[in-house]
């Protein structure tokens, strides 16, 4: 298989982060597809939580532009208030969350709020949504990013959603309950973090990309794992499920 988009690659990689039986806090956009692919392939016993107040098992029968579209509510296991869903996460029952980021740094801290001075920002980004809650309270989380030097930066100027702070041990010292980021899935590669937290390293490079290209597009001196590998391509099955869930390429074939 070589005819797939970088978004389809990210969906497949994100789907593989979901283990069977896990409770997943699904964010917007590509994670909605990743959950559907995982549930339809290797994780038939996973469950999904959506922050507006939903739990489901089966992926929705129709296309979703947002988690609140009617097909995501029909057939739900639970329709409730947001604070009930957040309660499960605060109790440590959410195994994995997904967060999209505008900027991420070497320790996995995300900025989705302000570029520049918050009082008069150069760029005002939309904000946390549920991102900060996932980053602090889920047992582990995965960030999805476009891989560009302006997005993968040495240090974010504003921490909307904390990762590993300034390195290993920071989360425990500051009372953060969840385990923090375990991976950053990008358009070029997969970065991972050491057990117990710390600095991201290059774990795998997507097909057709090189270690040098990934390092050149990263805003810090990115460590490369000794055993860095090529990311396995999306399988025929993963692509088929992705295209079933996104038939018009709304999420996976946009510029």
């Amino acid at each position: 298989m070589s005819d797939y988009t970088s978004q389809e690659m990210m969906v497949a990689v994100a789907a593989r982060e979901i283990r069977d039986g896990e409770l997943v806090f699904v964010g917007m956009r590509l994670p909605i597809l990743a959950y559907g692919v995982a549930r339809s392939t290797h994780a038939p016993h996973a469950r999904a939580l959506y922050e507006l107040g939903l739990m489901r098992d089966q992926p929705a029968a129709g296309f979703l532009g947002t988690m609140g579209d009617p097909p995501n509510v029909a057939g739900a296991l639970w329709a409730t208030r947001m604070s009930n869903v957040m309660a499960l996460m605060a109790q440590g029952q959410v195994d994995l969350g997904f967060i999209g980021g505008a900027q991420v740094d070497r320790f996995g801290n995300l900025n989705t709020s302000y570029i520049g001075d918050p009082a008069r920002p150069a760029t005002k980004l939309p904000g946390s949504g549920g991102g900060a809650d996932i980053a602090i309270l889920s047992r582990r989380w995965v960030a999805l990013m476009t891989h560009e030097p302006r997005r993968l930066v040495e240090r974010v100027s504003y921490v909307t959603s904390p990762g590993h702070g300034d390195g290993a041990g920071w989360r425990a010292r500051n009372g953060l309950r969840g385990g923090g980021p375990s991976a950053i899935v990008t358009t070029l590669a997969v970065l991972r973090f050491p057990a117990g937290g710390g600095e991201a390293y290059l774990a795998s490079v997507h097909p057709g990309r090189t270690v040098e290209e990934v390092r050149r597009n990263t805003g810090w001196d990115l460590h490369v794992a000794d055993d860095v590998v090529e990311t396995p391509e999306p399988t025929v099955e993963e692509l088929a499920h992705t295209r079933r869930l996104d038939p018009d390429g709304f999420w996976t074939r946009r510029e």
Partner: protein
Amino acid sequence: MAEAVARFVPDGASVAIGTALEPAIPFAAGHEIIRQRRRDLTLVGPISDSLFDQLIGAGCVATVCAAWVGNVSEGLGHCYRRATEQGEPRPIEVRDHSNFSISLALWAAAWGSPYIPTPTLLGSDIVRTNPGLKLSDGAVNVLPVQPDVTILHAQRADTEGHAHFWGPLGISEEAGLAASKVIVCCEELVAAEVVLSDPNRVLLPETKVVAVVHEPGGTHPAPLQGFWRRDHAAYRDYAARSRTAEGFREWLQNWVLAVADRREYLARLDATAALLVRRHLHSAPVDYGDE
């Protein structure tokens, strides 16, 4: 709608709207607020899918107290960016929250609590930039946020203000309980015995509700479970047109200012039939038998 907004949404009011997140957004109420040229509003919400952006672009807003402002399927809110970055059409103050913390702030107000301590937002700079959040003893204390008025769009209601709302609730209950007043917009106006046949599904007490507005189609382009699908193309069109201030003003003229009311707005849409939910899935009735 015009009367409800004129009576209960004065200049300077704090307004919670769009509290179910992506579904059931009372766009018709928001557009009426714009037409009546309200000023200096504080908007309260979780994520806002384009409605806050429109109210900000129209110059109605002084302060935003929310977790996320943009266009959920398209990305950034262009009017929000122009207001925060360039002060156009006017500067606004932003009090950032996360989804969990804005929910807790409303619960604090609903319960009359001075604050609610929570583990969320520990280590986030949101605590540093929002004075309504205080770090204390390894927790974040979330101070109350009390809207003057919460505006909801329910599937059905009676004239006394009993509303049945179904689907995910987001922060609708706490926003309604925290507010001094609630305006209920509804898709269907029904007899009291229909609503009171299932009191568990009544969202809020009638004592909070000051107005009931029968406004079919009032959530477009947002979906409403059992009635309307989401109009993704309308959100895409709004994102493209609002990219420039001039484009936004044209959009505002066409879809809000030159439109008398929601009935006329719906008549201007080409494809309302395709947006109506056709596959209906009724729940089984429950038994409230009493002896």
